[in-house]
């Protein structure tokens, strides 16, 4: 006899449907990335996600949870994916796997698994890698342009040997990093070594993250509050600095298109588990992450500070929620 609790009907929505939509939103950017940089990213995804699911299964087994429904919820899949696209594609596979370990085992399961982790698991993995392997984490491959050839070679990614080929690829720091170093050395914005007029490959990928994010808002997987408040916050705070001194501070548009701004706005800070539940809280959360990011980018030791800003603000979530509880119907 079926157990019927009221309500007897239910909308068709499950956790894995949400996760699947998130992946759909990330796919266009992946396509562009392969075109620009080749198949390494696919190898990273294959081995990285495989390892994440393996660790997830082991943790579930150790914690006496049913493996099937929890593996299929898609959360470990998405966490691994987000970490992999946040690190340089030419990262040595063992380094990546260390990051995955910290994301899944330490940040997620040690804190109680899905729904209980106070920190964004992908960002914990990222921060561990950035602190432990700064050289690897700041050397990004350079693109010769979008090439169809990259897709044809894609069958090679199953060979680990080929993945290590990435070591020989030409690498460079990201524009954020380069500019930071140059400005630190006393150069002025108009004398910088990079072209600011044409879109770089990374900027084009960032635009696809933006479009993928709009898709998530349209699909109602996320609301506009978090992304908009982060984007506006970065724009306004970097814009204020730019207005103050155009020779030392980059334009707000540069800050939006470089680094992980759009990826974070739509895919990272929107992780429901580690972000506030109240609408006002979401706006405060986004604004403060933006502010901290702008501060780290301009004055801190790392080129991009979003990961640290997210982790810091994760700690503040219970406090933010406490002070932003909305009024109940009839009590306004």
């Amino acid at each position: 006899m079926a157990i019927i609790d009221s309500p007897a009907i239910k909308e068709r929505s499950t956790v894995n449907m949400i996760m699947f939509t998130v992946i759909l939103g990330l796919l266009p950017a992946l396509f562009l990335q392969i075109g620009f940089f080749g198949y390494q990213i696919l190898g990273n995804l294959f081995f990285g996600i495989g390892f994440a699911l393996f660790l997830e299964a082991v943790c579930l087994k150790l914690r006496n949870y049913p493996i099937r429904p929890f593996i299929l919820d898609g959360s470990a899949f998405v966490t691994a994916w987000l970490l992999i696209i946040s690190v340089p594609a030419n990262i040595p596979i063992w380094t990546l796997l260390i990051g995955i370990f910290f994301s899944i085992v330490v940040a997620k399961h040690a804190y109680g698994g899905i729904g209980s982790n106070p920190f964004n698991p992908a960002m914990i993995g990222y921060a561990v890698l950035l602190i432990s392997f700064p050289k690897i984490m700041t050397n990004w491959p350079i693109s010769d342009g979008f090439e169809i050839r990259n897709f044809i070679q894609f069958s090679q990614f199953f060979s680990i040997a080929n993945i290590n080929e990435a070591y020989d690829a030409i690498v460079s720091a990201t524009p954020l990093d380069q500019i930071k170093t140059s400005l630190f050395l006393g150069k002025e914005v108009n004398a910088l070594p990079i072209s600011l007029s044409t879109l770089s490959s990374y900027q084009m990928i960032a635009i696809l993250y933006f479009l993928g994010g709009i898709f998530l808002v349209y699909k109602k997987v996320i609301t506009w509050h978090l992304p908009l408040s982060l984007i506006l916050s970065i724009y306004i705070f970097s814009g204020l600095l730019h207005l103050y001194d155009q020779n030392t501070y980059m334009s707000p548009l540069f800050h939006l298109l470089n680094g992980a701004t759009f990826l974070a706005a739509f895919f990272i800070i929107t992780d429901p588990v580690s972000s506030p539940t109240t609408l006002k809280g979401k706006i405060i959360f986004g604004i403060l992450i933006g502010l901290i990011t702008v501060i780290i980018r301009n004055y801190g030791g790392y080129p991009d500070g979003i990961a640290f800003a997210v982790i810091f603000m994760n700690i503040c979530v219970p406090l933010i929620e406490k002070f932003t509880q909305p009024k109940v119907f009839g009590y306004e």
Partner: protein
Amino acid sequence: MEITDKIFKFFGGIKPNGHKAISTINPIKRLPIPKKLIIPVRQHVGKVPNIKVSVGDKVLKGQILAEPIANISAATHSSSSGTVIAIESNKIPHPSGLPDLCITIETDGKDEWIKRNRIDPSNLSSEALYETMKSSGIVGLGGATFPTHIKLNSNKIKTLIVNAAECEPYITCDDMAMQEKTKEFIEGIQITMDFLKIPHAIIGIEDNKPKAIEKLKTVLNKSKNITIKVVPTVYPSGDEKRLIYLMLGLKISKEKRPVDFGIQVFNVATLISIGRFFYHSEPVISRIVTVTGALKRPNNYEALIGTPIQELIKDAGGKSDQEIIMGGPMMGFKLPHTDVSVTKAMNCLLAITDEMKSKDTFEMPCIRCTKCVEVCPAQLQPQELYWHAKSKQFEKLTEDYKLFDCIECGCCSYVCPSNIPLVQYYRYAKSEIRDQLKSSEVADIARERNEFRLYRLEREKKERAERNAQRRAQTSDSDKKKLIEEKKAAIAEAMKRIEEKEK
């Protein structure tokens, strides 16, 4: 309160598939009089009425079987003519599955009415009207079954709202009733307005009932004192406080009642029975029931109170072993027994569909997605309620998160991607809190009693000590000597008596 054409859309709500068309194809149907009617004595909120018949009595249609003994109570009538063959505990349609006292009538098929006198409300004083209403058996037929005469006994009402929203999926009994019993419906509204001495009423109806809206608009063509407000189809627009907001833009919390704002809300079926009672002298002996769901011929039935539900299900093409929900799919409950009879609260019998049976019930952890917040019409934080209910932090639930403002509409459970039975958690927390409150009340009384007893013992002790001291102080030394000598003499006398006996 000023009434405008504006609709005030409330926050949240959901738009599930209505499934209403399947039961509105054919007109409301009446079945032949059942051989047996099993009528529960109490079918309302309040005191059990006093049974006025005994086994073996002949009863007529509309005759009072049990009459109200207190204000919050209602009469129960015989739905047809026949003989009382049993007054005993029987299964009733209640989520607990517990039996209750029922009167079983073997019908004679004559359907003979008791002598009826037309009641003219305009000739009666308001007290007389109130007493008349008390004997009508009319209760809130939307499902709440609160005795209606209480709601009419107020001179503070300024606005009458007619709840014709019928927002639950599948249910169509009010829709069909408005189409087929338009006259009685309008009559019921008019009488209620006279009762409450108010000039205006608003009908709130969802836009998924175009035929009923059309019919009402034609009938109400010239009438300026009854307004129709068509609201978008969003569940739960038929919730009393949500409907008041839709109509008037007034938000009322759990701490206040609509009456405090001069508002009274009546359901369609209730108003129709008021109309029938005054214009046709007919107490509540039948009601319209939507019989729908996984059945061959879903339909609406005008069923006599006490009709075994299996007769309705069989006529609608169902099987006797089908699982049945009483009420709608959102707030209804599965009947623990399906061999029960129609009661005043029964607006819908919903045969459970395959879709409902295949509902995924594996409960995942909450991922804080706040889909529930987006749909909660009470603007609560369902995820906070869930966490605090689960960790039994009851004080926070009532103080900070207003658990008792939850109307258990089920919107949160409906959208939850983790399949958490949220409403069940809230019901559990509510009953725990009520129990705690009750036991703390009992404990308070016991403590007060004990404290008083200790105080009394202490006081008595003090009083006794005081009395003794007083006595001691009053007796002088010579008196004491005299007393001692008297006692000595008494002892000597007693000793002498003993000696004599021994000889």
